[in-house]
């Protein structure tokens, strides 16, 4: 397939990760260009989520390089990778159940909340502005009136939506979404689709893991097919899914 136009944003070069004798990721190489939406597909155990974890620095690579905005981010700690502009939605919900929806999303806006002295002597002005933004967005997604609910009281689908919103509010240049549609009902699925279409219109760069061909064909510009830790094909969605 001809490479999509746009600046190279993320480059994975011959990355390997072995767990004992299991080759979870076995020499993967690919590039993601700015403003493109790429679906990473493949059977269970193909190494897709491991690859995301390697990009974020959650687990360390055995070999290879990962470049982001031409900077080597191989094995950098997750917080550094995140602050460079990589935002991740985990496969399993990782919201904070003891906090409210708003509190969960507020954590994503910036890192001013980690400044001890500033927080000790200030009066949370930023929060008030950000809360308005959260309220507006929740309303657009038809899950308004839940901003003050504890996350543990939400349904699975609502949690997924809230987590996706939190991931989007995390300042980023690329979004890595690990099966955003997994386990949600059709209504929530539509809401997530709406969000992704909107992001596509805004020219966001997204790399997402997904199994559902309907979703992939509508959203993705290209597909990377993985199997047994390797990239086995890369093409436009229609071409790969016909063969798949």
């Amino acid at each position, binding site marked *: 397939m001809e490479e999509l136009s746009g600046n190279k944003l993320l480059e994975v070069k011959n990355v390997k990760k072995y767990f004992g004798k299991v080759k979870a990721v076995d020499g993967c190489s690919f590039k993601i260009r700015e403003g493109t939406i790429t679906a990473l597909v493949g059977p269970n155990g193909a190494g897709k989520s491991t690859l995301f974890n390697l990009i974020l620095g959650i687990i360390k690579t055995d070999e290879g390089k990962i470049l982001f905005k031409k900077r080597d981010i191989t094995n950098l700690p*997750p917080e550094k990778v995140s602050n460079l502009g990589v935002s991740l939605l985990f496969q399993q919900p*990782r919201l904070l159940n003891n906090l409210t929806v708003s509190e969960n999303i507020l954590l994503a806006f910036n890192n001013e909340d980690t400044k*001890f002295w500033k927080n000790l002597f200030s009066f949370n002005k930023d929060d008030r502005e950000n809360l308005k933004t959260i309220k507006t967005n929740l309303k657009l997604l038809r899950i308004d009136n839940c901003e003050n609910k504890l996350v543990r009281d939400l349904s699975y689908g609502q949690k997924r939506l809230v987590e996706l919103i939190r991931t989007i509010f995390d300042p980023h240049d690329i979004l890595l979404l690990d099966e955003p549609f997994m386990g949600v009902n059709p209504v929530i699925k539509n809401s997530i689709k709406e969000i992704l279409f909107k992001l596509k219109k805004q020219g966001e760069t997204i790399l997402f893991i997904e199994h559902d061909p309907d979703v992939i064909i509508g959203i993705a510009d290209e597909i990377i097919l993985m199997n047994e830790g390797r990239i086995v094909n890369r093409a436009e969605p229609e071409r790969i899914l016909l063969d798949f």
Partner: protein
Amino acid sequence: MIESYIIHLVIIIGIYIILTISLQLSVGFTGLFNIGHIAFFCIGAYATALLSLDNYSFLLCFLVSAVLSMISGFLLNFLIHKLKGDYFAIASLSFLLLIYSIALNWVSLTRGPLGLPGIPRPIIFGIDFSQNFNFLVLTISISLFSYLIIKKITSSPFGRVLEGIRDDELAMKVLGKDTFRVKSYVLATSAFFAGIAGSLYAYYINFIDPSSFGISQVIPILAIVIVGGLASLEGTVMSTIILILLIEPLRYLIFNPSIIGPVRQIIYALLAILILFYKPKGLYGRVEW
């Protein structure tokens, strides 16, 4: 007579409130199961004792105690920040054993098991705190100050990050939070206030020895935090008052003074276990253990 006894109880409660809310900051809000918190109390008490016996002013003794404890908290986090849960707890307990051993064995400095007697009460701006009532006012003022500072920390956006670290540290890292830096601030602050409590304790009791800072002292403060409930400062204050007053009558019920201490430990431990089984959120906690 009764009046002076009540004043004594309120002073002890005030000192313990500082100690337990500072422990709540690390255990309840941040999920750092710091069993070695008494080590900071010990450092604060010994720093005050040694300096005040050399006639240094209250302000200097008090600040040095707090800052030395704070530095220890920072160092402890630096050494063990990669450990989680039980491993963190065991490492912090080892830190307590280390500090205890120093207090016990560095005889030329601490007089070892003989302890340091005759710690003079402070005189601040001409006010003599050898009067227990004056010392009560001082203790309450410092307790209130400590409570307000820790309340401000925990109710600010910084407090939200602490709760995030407690519930899912990796999720916080992926959101770009430097959790090492945040935990350093927390343990340093927690130790700072424990050092303040230690300083007040040394001034009040006039005598300290290593037995006041052993592992057995961990049980009461952990029991108070458990009974009060995780991430609840109000609960911690309430449980400090309730548990100290609840245990106090033992003095009059048990005539053999040598068994009062162990019986107290048993009651504290039993209360903690019962709460964990039947009311895991404690009295006012928002989070289950």
